[in-house]
């Protein structure tokens, strides 16, 4: 355990020491939420007001809607890119120092995954500085529910990242895979637009996308969807169903948990086998 914790702590230490990385991590969310979000919110609101039930849809706020998606985006990208540190450690030589020590290969893999996970959760929490711009009301109980949820999602994605890094071994290859798979998955997850009334093909891609369920979980927690007006909830695409079954937050937790176990196992095996 000690060595897993040590590896994890090293990544966190490096994260906080890298001021440039820390600052730039705010850039994309800011762009999406403040610029894109503010720009779209007027258009979105007027579209919603055009609907049948004027009064219940009036308080639709695109920035509010988008915030859980932004948290998702930050957690996904941070955790998956955290695996780049394994490739960097190999390039800069530090991996040899770890590999030649008595630390088990599996402990190294877990330590790396946990390091990425922790950084992603911290990054996700840092995004709450944008809350005042969105008009959301965040209380402690939301945060207490959200942290384990972010942790679970980040753990899964960090494992996916480590798996990709162990398969590809180069920075460029890694980045290519992220561009081709992860970004489309992010856009098809309902992070940026409500997932209702989508074309059939797109709906299919949304439903098979694991990130959809992660984003939906964040939305359920942050927007407190069970307290929302049912009409508004429907309009915001928050009634995620699969084969006529309404997906609950517990379904989502279970699903992501299973995925995390699969991916962390695969990543650990692949990493140990490589080295």
């Amino acid at each position: 355990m000690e060595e897993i914790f040590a590896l994890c702590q090293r990544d966190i230490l490096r994260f906080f020491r890298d001021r440039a990385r820390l600052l730039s991590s705010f850039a994309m969310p800011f762009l999406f939420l403040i610029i894109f979000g503010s720009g779209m919110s007027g258009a979105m609101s007027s579209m919603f007001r055009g609907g049948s039930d004027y009064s219940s849809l009036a308080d639709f706020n695109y920035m509010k809607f988008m915030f859980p998606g932004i948290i998702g985006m930050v957690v996904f990208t941070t955790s998956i890119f955290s695996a780049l540190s394994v490739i960097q450690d190999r390039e800069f030589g530090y991996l040899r120092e770890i590999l030649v020590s008595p630390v088990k290969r599996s402990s190294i893999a877990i330590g790396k995954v946990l390091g990425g996970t922790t950084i992603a959760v911290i990054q996700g929490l840092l995004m709450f500085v944008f809350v005042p711009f969105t008009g959301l009301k965040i209380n402690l109980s939301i945060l207490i529910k959200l942290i384990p949820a972010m942790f679970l999602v980040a753990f899964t994605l960090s494992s996916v990242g480590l798996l990709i890094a162990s398969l590809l071994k180069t920075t460029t290859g890694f980045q290519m895979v992220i561009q081709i798979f992860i970004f489309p998955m992010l856009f098809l997850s309902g992070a940026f637009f409500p997932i209702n009334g989508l074309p059939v093909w797109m709906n299919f891609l949304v439903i098979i996308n694991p990130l959809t369920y992660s984003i939906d979980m964040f939305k359920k927690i942050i927007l407190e969807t069970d307290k929302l007006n049912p009409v508004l909830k429907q309009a915001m695409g928050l009634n995620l169903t699969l084969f006529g079954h309404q997906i609950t937050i517990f379904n989502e937790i279970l699903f992501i948990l299973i995925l995390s176990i699969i991916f962390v196992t695969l990543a650990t095996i692949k990493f140990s086998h490589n080295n």
Partner: protein
Amino acid sequence: MNDIESNFNNIIKVKSLGKKFGDLEAVKNISFEVKEGEIFGFLGPNGAGKTTTINMLCTMLKPNHGTASINGYSILTSSNEVRKSIGIIFQENTLDEKLTANENLSLHCRFYRIPKKERENRIKEVLDIVELGDKRYKIVETFSGGMKRRLEIARGLLHYPKVLFLDEPTIGLDPQTRAHVWEYILKLKEKAGITMFLTTHYIDEAEICNRVAIIDYGQLIALDSPDELKSKIGGDIVEIITSDNEAAKKEIETKYNKEVTENHKVISFKVDKGNRFLISFIKEFQTPIKSINLRRPTLNDAFLKLTGRQIREEEASTRDLMKKRMQMHRRR
């Protein structure tokens, strides 16, 4: 068991170890033993198989055949015990440069499960040995090349290894820093009395070792103390530069019946009692001599005799330069 007990003083035992990379046989069936407490050197040109051998001994690479044991543990079956018994200074830098010296060292303590209450003392102790105590809380990135090497040596000692492997410990360092690093290594040997296994292609560094193994094309071609290796050559070496080397070579061969070699326009040959020989030689020699030199044999001569070629330090040093440049490039 019997085997281990009978060789109690041999801390490293290598038995017909071999490694192939595709068609290339990097290490061919080598066997040797290293005594506890000695400085053991692996001398050979670049690509001779030194690093491959070290990597196998450090359990970083699986041999294709043969086996070895360190501190009584087999590298094949008890790799974890082997890893606990050894410290390694790799050819390339393996420090985390974004962290401080202290952070690098305390991470190492945790990887090797050094008890919490001992860590502070050990970190101080090893930093004192390499005289980096005042740099403890500085970021490694700001260190000079020599300081980084010293810090790596300190880190390699933290868990009190039985054997310290040094793979080209002074590669890419300027001559002054090289000498400095050696000072620390020798001090270490006196203080801690640990066994040191080092590879080098610098002749002068090999001279410091208690015993030297000469390795070329993956084969062990000689193993002895530097003095013994040199004495096998016998006598002294005369080096001359003449205005007509071809004529001079013929003259030496016919007149004195000596075997001559020419390297970079310097003709050299071996004589007994060189100081007396020189007087008559200068008087009698027909071809005009531009310069003349008499010296004791070096390990390079031993290597030359055993392999028929020089270690070629100048070629090695340009390779070092390339290696360094590539590392810098990668680091950018």
